[in-house]
């Protein structure tokens, strides 16, 4: 059931929010063995009264959002016993809207990673095929919506952490403009790239949730002023005359059979969209810049992450290890608390920030970021949105030991172009566009900064034309 359907049953008293919660909880518990999407499943039903569309609707939230009195681990051993004393703004708003929390979902440790395999409670599996990954870092949030446990969930997106797993799991994943949703209480990964994101099974639900959690927040200085608009009201507005573009070099970077198959599907959908009156043009973009998307992302995110996680010392909170001096306590706590993947990223981040390397690595990466964002902003003057396949892959196999060639154009460009959305803080949405190898694949739409309404409006039309909506794992129509 999607939000609208649940709402209807609640309104005509066919069901109650308690019943919806119990059902969700049952599904959550049942699905754990299969896909392992939760760190915590709520014991008790708690709910506030409200007139919101989300009143009584069960949902899940990524375990890197601060929830008062509810364990919040960021899927890391260092926080495995951390019980926050304050609420993140997103959680607070959902609570106030009467939404009912079912559970806290697994992520890649500290939201760093794209597989969903590195959380301290074990790997998250793809509901469509448990031998495959769900994608990450918002792994559990994507998987539990795909599995039909909850109609929507909250994630966070620093590079593609909502929009990639959405593609792998066959759900809709949206991250609005940087600052549209408060980051207060979201455990930071890379502050200048971090976004709050939403998973649901259709664009309307995405808009409904965004309407509730968006808005200026005096606890987050980077939040935008409020808009006098409900996204759910504008979804059906006519998009006649809107113009989209895709980038030739990104499409052409596909070399493997699988990615070529996905590109073929993308092109087929582009034709379909064109036939339905949407203008779409091919645009050429400097390939050398595109090839640096990943390194620029990697450099900025590792550097910021190293600093952002320096509060994890075990003194005030966290899983403190013994030691004979404060330094020893810190070393033992952090050595035990972080997995090796995290440590490697921190060392890299620390190297990047060093005085002697900063100019060449960090500052230059930020220069490329500006260069790219300026070029993108120019394109957004001419076009209403950028449309691309969200990935050149279907969800990879978990035991696939084959690491991607991290220097190939296909990897650098096709697998990483979603970071454009984070570089410029653009609203960006992934929705299902079809199937390859019986697995779902997503199409992504990115619009200019602050054009969240436009992005959702166009996405809603894409959804209608493509005709894939409200699906759960296996392609079964959600019931």
């Amino acid at each position, binding site marked *: 059931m999607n939000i609208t359907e649940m709402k209807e049953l609640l309104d005509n008293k066919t069901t109650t929010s308690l019943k919806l919660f119990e059902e969700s909880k049952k599904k959550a518990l049942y699905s754990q063995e299969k896909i392992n999407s939760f760190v915590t499943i709520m014991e008790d039903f708690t709910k506030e009264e409200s007139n919101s569309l989300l009143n009584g609707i069960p949902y899940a939230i990524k375990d890197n959002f601060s929830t008062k009195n509810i364990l919040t681990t960021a899927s890391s051993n260092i*926080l495995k016993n951390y019980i*926050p004393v304050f609420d993140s703004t997103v959680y607070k708003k959902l609570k106030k809207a009467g939404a009912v929390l079912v559970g806290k979902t697994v992520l890649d440790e500290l939201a760093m990673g794209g597989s969903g395999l590195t959380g301290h409670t074990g790997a998250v599996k793809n509901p469509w095929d448990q031998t495959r990954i769900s994608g990450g870092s918002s792994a559990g949030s994507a998987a539990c919506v795909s599995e039909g446990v909850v109609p929507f969930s909250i994630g966070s997106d620093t590079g593609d952490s909502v929009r990639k797993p959405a593609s792998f799991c066959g759900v809709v994943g949206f991250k609005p403009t940087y600052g549209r949703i408060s980051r207060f209480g979201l455990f930071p990964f890379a*502050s200048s790239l971090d976004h709050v994101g939403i998973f649901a099974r259709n664009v309307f639900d995405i808009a409904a949730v965004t309407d509730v959690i968006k808005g200026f927040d005096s606890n987050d200085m980077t939040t935008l002023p409020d808009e006098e608009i409900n996204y759910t009201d504008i979804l059906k507005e006519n998009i006649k005359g809107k113009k989209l573009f895709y980038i030739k070099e990104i499409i052409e970077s596909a070399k493997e059979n699988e990615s070529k198959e996905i590109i073929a599907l993308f092109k087929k959908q582009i034709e379909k969209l064109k036939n339905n009156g949407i203008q779409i043009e091919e645009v050429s973009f400097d390939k050398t810049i595109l090839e640096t998307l990943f390194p620029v992302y990697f450099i900025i995110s590792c550097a910021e992450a190293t600093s952002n996680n320096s*509060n994890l*010392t075990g003194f005030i909170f966290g899983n403190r290890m013994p030691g004979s001096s404060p330094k020893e306590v810190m070393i033992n706590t952090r050595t035990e608390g972080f997995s090796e993947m995290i440590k490697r990223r921190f060392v890299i981040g620390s190297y990047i*920030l*060093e005085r002697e390397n900063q100019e060449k690595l960090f500052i230059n990466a930020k220069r490329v970021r500006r260069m790219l964002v300026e070029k993108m902003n120019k394109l957004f003057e001419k076009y209403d949105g950028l449309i691309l396949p969200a990935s050149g892959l279907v969800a990879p196999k978990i035991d696939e030991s084959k690491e991607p060639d991290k220097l190939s154009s296909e990897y650098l460009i096709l697998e990483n172009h979603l970071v454009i959305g984070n570089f410029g803080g653009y609203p960006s949405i992934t929705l299902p566009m079809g199937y390859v190898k019986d697995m779902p694949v997503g199409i992504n739409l990115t619009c200019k900064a602050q054009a969240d309404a436009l992005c959702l409006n166009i996405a809603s039309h894409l959804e209608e034309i493509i005709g894939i909506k409200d699906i759960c794992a296996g392609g079964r129509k959600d019931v």
Partner: protein
Amino acid sequence: MYKAVIGLEVHCELNTKTKMFSSSINEYTKDPNTNISVIDLAFPGILPLPNKEAVKKSLKLAMALNCETPSIVLFDRKNYYYADLPKGYQITQMTCPFGKNGYLEIEIDGTIKKYGIHQLHLEEDTANMEHLETESLLDYNRAGVPLVEIITDPCFNEENEVITFLENLRNIIKYCDISEASSDKGQLRVDVNISMMKDTDTVLGTRAEIKGINSFNNVKEIITYEIKRQTEILEKGEKVIQETRRWVDDKKITVSMREKVDAIDYKYYVEPNIPVVPLSKEYKESIKEEIPVLPLEREKKYISLGVLPKDAKTLVRNKEVSDFYEEALLLEVDPKDASNWITTRILGYVNNNNISFSDIYMTPLMLANMLKMISSKSISTQQAKEVCALCLEEKKTPEEIVKEKGMEQISDPESIKEIVNKVLNENPEQVNIYKNGKTNIIGFLVGQVLKASEGKANPALVSKILNEEINNR
């Protein structure tokens, strides 16, 4: 001969109502962990909320110290791990400090000297640590308190110069109302960098750094000690090691803490959670207008009004005293008289009783009224001293004291004598009558004196003095 080259880093906690990046209370308290928020404790997910007033106050100080000020507010992170630093980084200003290339003018031995301010920036304080036998206790009340750091050029050569500079700086800080600047509460802390060089040397020697000095007295002792220590090393032909040293107060020596202070790489970078805030010309101008006339200028003004240079210095040493004096001047008192009364009587009382000037009962208006009574001769200078003392001690207005003590009657023998003689001179006939034995005529003369004093003269005194004076004739 070696000479010392000394530079200072002065940390000053601002007297804002709330902390630098959180809205928890900025107030000194002994009750640990009471003025704190989730931001001060760096719980995951918190974001910094920079304090407007702290920005304003530090800009004000930067301007008072003649610094160049930026056109934007921008913060950076300084990354390092320490038990007293909850976030694992300190938010500070590196790229765009609030002050650059300023100076402070100071009068030393009658000449005005300029001391360079290299940089002034705004940052946050760390937690307080109490060291017990086997453990250290962390109190986060101080964590996140706004802190201004003032870095001077290495422009001092001797301890007295440093102390005079620090006293002047503290004074300006108080004049600008940006801090209580109390050393006792750790609100003013000084780091001293010191090296020795020969007059013929062109480069600075290797320096030692002594951090977190709480009292100016210690600053002086430390510099004296370091000059001696480093000179001895150099004279032996040995090398001074670049290091951080610690002052051991009971032994009056410095000891090595750690070597190579420059080796730490703080990995500064722009704080991403605080969007750039522009500082308009108008805004900066409005801050500048709030800077009060500073001590040195006030001192000059007082001297021009005829105040003794020594007293002028005393008046400006404490802003409250100087403000008191300024207010009295507005009430058209004689500048010299008012200065005398403040520097001798009032400050004498404050010092003897070890109280704060702000706690005295006397107001500038009371002082002005008292001075008017003296000049109108309604009380004598001698009586005024009593009035002043009672006003301060018994918390009564001069008018109340004069009434209570009957001073509103003329009880001053000299004044009465004056009136008596005037009356005797005007009535030679009656004096003759008296001299001829009709002594009861004295009643008439007493009446005349009382009349002449408009009834204010003390009758008993009049009668006594009249008898004396008439018999002297």
